[in-house]
């Protein structure tokens, strides 16, 4: 059984005035445990919509999302936030750290919401912060650190619950290329330790770090690439993206 299974996913937005946008149409794919999958597409292709559905932050118009065999649509609303907290971690482009908390407290937030004892929190936070190189920043506030450092803290917040699936929406979108590289190094390292990751992005630099890249165009999956050891995956992903533009996918 795959960790994540998506079957015939569809999302239609109805806007005021009766206009309807089909943001996703018939999207199906599966993610195995321990995989690092990137979903690539131009802006407006439906990446964020897809990720929000995987995160159970939104409900699909049709189709289903199964996490470890469990249908997200069947989880009752009041259990949903607890489920999200226990099984999913998120990193967003706007990194969404809270200004009211220090970085350390930002990272601990999901554990506090899960009502873990404080001693347990400390023993999870320190090694993780060490790994991500933000130990010295734990007492600083979000506005006092750089974008790359904030995004690493956001990654720590996503990882500290030890989620079965890490979801990332354009995590490098607001970063310079060096900070982006550092964050992607962290993702790859976590993946090597067994963390399953699904990341949506429009950047080739980010996508080529994944083991598998799915291409999304106008709300449909149109192509899939797998990396092979020793090859220039960057080139193939870039070519794949260029081919999309020409419509020869």
């Amino acid at each position, binding site marked *: 059984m795959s960790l994540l299974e998506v079957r015939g996913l569809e999302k239609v937005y109805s806007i005021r005035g009766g206009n309807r946008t089909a943001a996703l149409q018939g999207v199906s794919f599966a993610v195995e445990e321990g995989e690092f999958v990137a979903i690539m597409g131009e802006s407006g292709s439906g990446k964020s919509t897809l990720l929000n559905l995987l*995160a159970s*932050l939104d409900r699909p118009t049709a189709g289903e999302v199964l996490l470890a065999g469990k249908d997200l649509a069947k989880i009752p*609303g*009041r259990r*949903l*936030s*607890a489920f*999200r*907290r*226990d099984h999913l971690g*998120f990193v*967003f482009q706007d990194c*969404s*750290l*809270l*200004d*009211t*908390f220090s970085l350390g*407290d930002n990272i*601990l*937030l*999901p554990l*506090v*919401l*899960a*009502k873990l004892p*404080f001693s347990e*929190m400390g023993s999870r936070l320190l090694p993780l912060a060490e790994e991500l190189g933000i130990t010295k920043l734990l007492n600083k*506030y979000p*506005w006092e650190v750089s974008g790359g450092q904030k995004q690493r803290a956001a990654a720590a*917040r996503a990882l500290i619950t030890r989620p079965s699936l890490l979801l990332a929406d354009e995590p490098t979108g607001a970063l310079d290329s060096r900070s982006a590289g550092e964050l992607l190094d962290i993702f790859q390292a976590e993946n090597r330790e067994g963390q399953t990751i699904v990341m949506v992005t429009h950047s080739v630099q980010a996508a080529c770090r994944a083991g598998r890249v799915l291409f999304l165009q106008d709300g449909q999956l149109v192509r899939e690439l797998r990396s092979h050891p020793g090859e220039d995956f960057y080139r193939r992903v870039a070519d794949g993206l260029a081919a999309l533009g020409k419509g020869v996918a």
Partner: protein
Amino acid sequence: MRRKLLCPWLAFQNLRNNRRDYLPFLGAASLIICLFFTVCNLSESRGFARSIPGSGTLHGLMSVATLLLPVVCAPFLWYINSFLMKRRKKELGLYGVLGLEQRHVGTVLFFETLYSFLFSLAAGLGAGILLTGLSGKLLLGLAGITADYTPSVTPVALLYTLGLFGVIFLGCLAGNLVHLSLAAPTDLLREDHSGERDPRFGVLGSILGLLLLGGGYAVAIWAYCEPMLALLVVPVFFLASLLAALGTYGVFIFGSIYVLKALRGNKDFYYRPQNFVTVSGMLHRMRKNGAGLANICLFSTMTLVTLCCTLTVAFGQGEVMTLVGTDYRAGAVSLDLAHIAPEELTVFFGTLAFLGIFFGAAFLLCTVLVMYYKQITEGHQDRDGFVVMRRVGMGVGMVRSTVRRQVTLVFSLPLLGALLHLCFAVPVLIRLFDILCVSSRTVLLGTGCAVLVFAGLYLGAYLTTAKAYYKIVVK
């Protein structure tokens, strides 16, 4: 669009687009204008002077009131105005980015202020003029005057109102322009993180605040116990108020942060879902705007004291009237009841009650509005935070209870402060009312009723505001 008309048109659009923020402000300004005009008009009414015995007293009291009302209301309107401006920082910054010169933005602000002024003036004066007859009857009724006389609109009162509020709105405009010129476009666009660090001299500030507060309270008690101070009871009352007000700022701005940090230091307490969000949220809030809660506390105190005096005057009138003609004296400087005309006394008490109602309404309005704006502003600031917390697994139920807790805290802290202040104001009020020969029992009765009335109104304001806040945050 003709270039010359661009700024007036933009100003109009701005007010329209921000109407949810501006309408309460304009409403309050209108009401204050209406109150001021009414008091001023009655005080200037020539007909009054002739038709009423004891009208000298009436005129004197009303004149003092026309001087005092703007002293309270002008800073209040400026305060709300600066609130509104701060909320529009991004918008103003955007103008700069879009290539509008500061000069033009200034012109837009000028027109905005002009429209606001004209609107509130029209609404306030309109209501005031329409209600002239009614307010006159109310005053006459309270003052026990049966003269068949209806006051008319006096041009002098119109001029005073126009001039005074013209100056107040000019002050608003000046504040806005200073705000605009001090901030570079990039500053306006950037999120403002200044003042989010701990204030310097925190411990010193807390101690000083406590000392001032204690000093104010001590002066109040001293005025109660020392009969020699009876001659000076009014200045002593002001001294105590001043000390207590300064102390309030110290305690709210510095002391609150000290307490909150101590709570944060207690790990087992702090790292629980409710406390975690509330303590850090309050800390953030107090760092950013500790003076806000202090202002609300002081406005509440003022409202409470005004209500208290009004009700005491109303309750005490009958009691004092029975003493007229006797040689009863409550203290060294009491009214000479043996030689006062009963009519004059009635006019005096009636006018005081009338003014009390007007001042009470004005102060109450200030309190409620400042509270409303504070919560709305904070609601907008908190919204993104709650979105994030929902994402990382905060359930709707917990959002609801956290919001309730936060709003309740913000409301109850100033109320508790105000009630504490009132406890120490009452002894001085007892001495103050000695002058009018009103017994301390009546003062206590008035105080009790004032607290009930205020608590009811405050609760109403709390419920309305909490609803608005929750709507913003949860959407």
